[in-house]
């Protein structure tokens, strides 16, 4: 469902992502972890079509992001790490905006938008300007909007930042349900517990390169840390 081939990104002299190769199956939840500045957000932005790679290719559902960006983006639900939105729109207006962008059928929009907003506890606030929302509410609104067009691929950068414990649990449940119904989830996170709980496979990126890839068990084996948690494995693998 997601194919990254020799994906690289260079900012001037800095090589942010170095020949990243990755293949994700349908319905898989993939955790992407790494230290600050490792290249997680850059990778995610290239996958979402927000940044163009210096070299390599991103393929979503067999469609090349470089050759057919519109077609590829239609299949993606993109959730960035920082919830920048159009503050002068209301929550429901932003949902309508997203629905129009992704050509969601008018007939089902209202019912679906209300259902998702209720799920995230935003329905009551749906006719208020986004500028009145808290950080966590904005994050929830972005997630709601990303789910509106039922994407085949969900690309999420730090999904739990700013969410309260109830919302974190809800997002985890939603991601699990989505994966069960066939959506592929690519998620970067610093919350290793979340990655351990949710992800089928985990990739560790360090200095732009993928240094480890596999299930939690496989990573523990690679780090020769059978009884440790993911945090210890992560620290062992990324230590200088």
């Amino acid at each position, binding site marked *: 469902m997601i194919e990254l081939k020799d994906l690289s990104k260079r900012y001037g002299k800095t090589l942010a992502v170095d020949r990243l190769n990755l293949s994700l199956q349908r319905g898989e939840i993939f955790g992407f972890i790494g230290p600050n500045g490792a290249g997680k957000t850059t990778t995610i932005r290239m996958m*979402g*079509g*927000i*940044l*163009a790679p210096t070299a390599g290719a991103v393929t979503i559902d067999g469609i090349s992001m470089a050759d057919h*960006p*519109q*077609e590829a*983006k*239609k299949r*993606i639900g*993109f959730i*960035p790490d*920082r919830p*920048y*939105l*159009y503050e*002068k*729109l*209301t929550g*429901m*207006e932003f949902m*309508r*905006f*997203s*629905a*129009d*962008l*992704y*050509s969601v059928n008018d007939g089902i929009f209202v019912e679906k938008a209300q259902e998702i907003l209720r799920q995230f506890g935003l329905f009551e606030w*749906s*006719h*208020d*300007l986004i*500028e*009145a929302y808290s950080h966590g509410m904005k994050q929830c609104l972005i997630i709601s909007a990303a789910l509106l067009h039922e994407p085949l691929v969900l690309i999420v950068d730090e999904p739990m930042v700013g969410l309260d414990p109830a919302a974190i649990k809800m997002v985890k449940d939603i991601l699990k349900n989505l994966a069960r119904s066939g959506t592929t989830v690519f998620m970067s996170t610093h919350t290793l517990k979340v990655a351990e709980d949710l992800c089928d496979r985990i990739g560790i990126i360090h200095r732009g390169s993928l240094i480890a890839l596999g299930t939690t068990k496989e990573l523990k084996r690679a780090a020769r840390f059978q009884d440790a948690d993911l945090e210890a494995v992560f620290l062992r693998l990324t230590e200088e």
Partner: protein
Amino acid sequence: MQAVITLLKPRFWSHKNGDLSRDSESRTVRLILFGILLFAFRLMRPEQLTNPDAFSSVLQYFRSLETGGSPWLPTTWIFDSIRAALSGSYRTALLGLALAWSFAATLVFVMTWIAGAAYFTGFSKAQTTSERLLPGRSERSKSAAWLLHFLSGPARAFAVKEIKVFFRDQTQWPQIFLILALIVIYLYNFSVLPLEKSPMKTVYLQNLMAFLNMGLASFVLTALAARFVFPAVSTEGPAFWIVRAAPVQMRAFLWVKYFIYYIPLLLLSEILIVATNILLQVTDFMMALSVATIFCMVPGIVAMGVGLGAAYPDFQSENPAQAVTSFGGLLFMILCTVFIGLVIVLEAGPVYQVFMAGVHGRGLSVGQWAWLSVSFSLALLLCVLAVILPMRIGERRLESRL
């Protein structure tokens, strides 16, 4: 005094909205007052001062304005003090000076006392949370969106968003009021032009003014475009990721921006040009020429605004309206000036020939027809290029930021 009013304002001002909107309300009030002042000044017809015939009445007018100063005003104390010092009455001068300084010191004391009592309460009251600002908004937005239903989904999404965000941004309103005030003054200026006092023939002067007015109206349009169109891409701010992630071509995004601003600016420019032409009582030929020229120039100026705004965006700025003071904004103003100048120069010669032929009741020669055709074709080509090139450059530059 202003500081005291500011300190006490939160105690009495309704704190329905956040402090940010209160600030913009205050800014709006200030700008409306400025607009009224501008109107009042213009309606005094200060240009009469340059007219020797009106001198006696103006002097009379100023004399009528002279009133005795109140003995309670600091300005009177200062004035009396200076006058007394100049005439050698130092005791009176010192009294005036002492009154002025002691009053200033008293105000500082009163101000400090009020600040001590009211500042913290006022500050706390100003820290309000946003409330339900838009009850029932959804119903209205449905009807507004319905008007744009003929557009494709993504185009409608951007168009509806653009219009709503524009009109809900309180910082835009004062600018609109100010611009409307300036436009009314612009029209008023044309209505009071003393053409009959010129040594030139009135009909000639009227049409010359109308011709030059095409350039002036275009400059007004450029100023409007600099304020509203050029920052249009920058106003996306950090939310520009939404456009990037959306399954929409950058071209479509820019063209939606273009049409959102093109239609109102075209209407405004045509109203401006037709109204001034009616005030000037120009010939039918000049009326048709002005309307057609503006019709062809507006797309170019708007496209340069959107295109160059996209080529030099500033997504980080807290106030995107300031984008116009950047290098891109300067380039936009220069290119618009060159564009307007070229179109006016290209049209000037043939228009003069046509006008004089009309005045003398004779037809145009073959050479004059050829000149007219070439000049107008070049002007039209320039207008077309002014639309296509900046939009393409903007699109490419924005894409290359990926």
